[in-house]
């Protein structure tokens, strides 16, 4: 039974871990090292929305939309109606050619309309994505299109490439605050280093689903845990998961991974 106040994550095992799903209208973090499966998890979240007739937006800051489309093809999900906003900055020019911030007129493309080849940087101007322009654009889009689910892939790229270092902490905080106020359920992808400290975004979100990657003699083992979930109880164990042809499957039946 899913309580009426929560929405499904698109992964049944994760719904169990979160005791029903996400509380809608809030931002959540999906974190993990490169290659853990963060993008796949977030696309499953959007797909769940699409199946229920919701409007969903994927903001691509790490990989070009054409590659996302090709990568997701193997799962045979119907993502035709997914809106994808290409927020990858163009190649930087080092000459005095005009640099344009992405305008607030920019429109996301429907997944079905995205081509096979990468968008090319035009010869005479470069599009640059800054956190301010992106926030403005999202504001316009959310009003105009009433998105219910939004994925930002990734917050790390936003911090690394779209803001200046001295303002990182404040700007990140205000961006996340903006998402919280906009009443959309959002997943923010966060890259983690292989070891060491967790970036500050994790502390700002209402919840964090963390993916772990462990290599042993038999290959890569993947695990998932809910690190934090404000306003709800959640499962506190670490569970193994696999990336299958139907996406991420969490094995909630198995003993929690931490029992040695």
């Amino acid at each position, binding site marked *: 039974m899913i309580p009426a106040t929560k929405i499904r994550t698109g992964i049944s095992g994760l719904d169990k871990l979160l005791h029903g799903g996400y509380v809608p209208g809030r931002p959540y973090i999906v974190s993990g*090292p*490169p*290659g853990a499966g963060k*993008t796949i998890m977030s696309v499953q979240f959007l797909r769940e929305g699409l199946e229920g007739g919701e409007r969903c937006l994927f903001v691509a800051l*790490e*990989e*070009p939309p054409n*590659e996302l489309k*090709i*990568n997701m093809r*193997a799962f045979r999900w119907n993502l035709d109606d997914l809106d994808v906003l290409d927020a*990858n*900055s*163009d*190649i*930087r020019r*080092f000459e005095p050619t005009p640099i344009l911030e992405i305008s607030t007129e920019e429109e996301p493309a429907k997944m079905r309309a995205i081509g096979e*080849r*990468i968008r*090319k*940087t035009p010869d005479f101007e470069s599009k640059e994505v800054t956190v301010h322009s992106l926030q403005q654009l999202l504001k316009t889009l959310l009003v105009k299109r009433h998105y219910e689910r939004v994925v930002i892939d*990734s917050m*790390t*790229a936003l911090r*690394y*490439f779209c803001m*200046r*270092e001295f303002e990182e902490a404040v700007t990140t905080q205000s961006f996340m605050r903006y998402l919280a106020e906009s009443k959309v359920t959002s997943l923010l992808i966060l*890259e*983690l*280093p*292989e*070891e*060491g*400290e967790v970036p500050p975004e994790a502390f700002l979100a209402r919840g964090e689903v*963390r993916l*772990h*990657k*462990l*290599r*042993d*003699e*038999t*290959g*890569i083992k993947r*695990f998932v845990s809910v690190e934090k979930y404000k306003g709800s109880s959640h499962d506190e164990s*670490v569970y193994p998961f696999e*990336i299958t042809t139907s996406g991420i499957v969490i094995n909630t039946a198995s003993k929690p*991974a*931490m029992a*040695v």
Partner: protein
Amino acid sequence: MDRVKTGIAGLDTMLNDGLLPARPYVVSGPTGSGKTVLAAHFLLEGLRQQEPCLLVTLDEPPFEVKSNMATFGWSLDRLKILDATPDVRAHKRARSVIDVGTSLDVRDMEDVTDIRQSSVMRALEVTVHSVQKMIKQEFLTHLEHTKQRYKRIVVDSMTALKMFSMQGQDSRILIQSFLRFLSELEATSLIVSERLDRKTLETEFFLSRGEIRLHKWIDGSAIRRAVSIEKFRGSSFDDKMRTLTIGEKGMVVLLEAPATIRGTSPGPKPGESLLEARLIDEVSNAIEGVMRQIEEAHRRQVPVRDMEVSLSRAMLAFQRRSYQKAMQIALACDSDLKQRIAGAPPPPPVAAPPRPPAVTR
């Protein structure tokens, strides 16, 4: 979609038939792990398939690359090589690389005979910008002359590029832009990069569409090598670590048995992660518990010499990262000790209880 073969059969099998075309990938590993050899295989395979290939070298001057590859008996003559090794700084002249033609810096491998003398040509100072510009110009010139696009590009190495030319806050954006640039060329590219610090998240590692990681460690007196795939967007892959050899014919990946690292070399090893950190905590807690009990047994004058031996075995296993084994031994000690202590007379009174010793890792 057609895959791009790396030219190393075992590695192609691991990659589920090869790399996805027109995307940038990272080849990582410590010094001497074979990154450049892997990249050379990739280029050689391209040449074999009549594809135009470009090597951008920042670490070694072309003639060194050439003589190194000659030891494998490979002819990379048709390979275009873009010499981006920085000149001796003292020879730097006022003209920057931006205003001058860069065609001089690209040569066929067969024309490479000796190191370029800094004083003969203008001095080059290497920046991301200049390298990007050189690649672009070469790409366009090649397209114009042969009506062919470069299909494979190797940048060896990103580590050098970063060290030479990037300071401060712009470096992330420069790398992002550089990778975007490589993507827009629609060539399959390999970026050679040494991971300098596992605790920082380096841009090329999370932006690239995949990472092939090479490992090297000392086992007794022998050097052992292995390869693993850490990330590969849009494809399934063999996630085991495989044994690797570099011999007369270059690099060979052995698929029969997964490689396991059992060396004595310190330093980072694969498999370290957050989860492992938790495991370490659990095992060290267990060991600490056993140590406290041994302490207690001493106070009650219960003989525990054998337990001390077991404890050192557990700690040895712990040090060798056999956490499961360490845990088993520690747990066995724990229950054994509990029984012995329970069966012993109560301890003589002591003024202050001794402090439990801390486990050092």
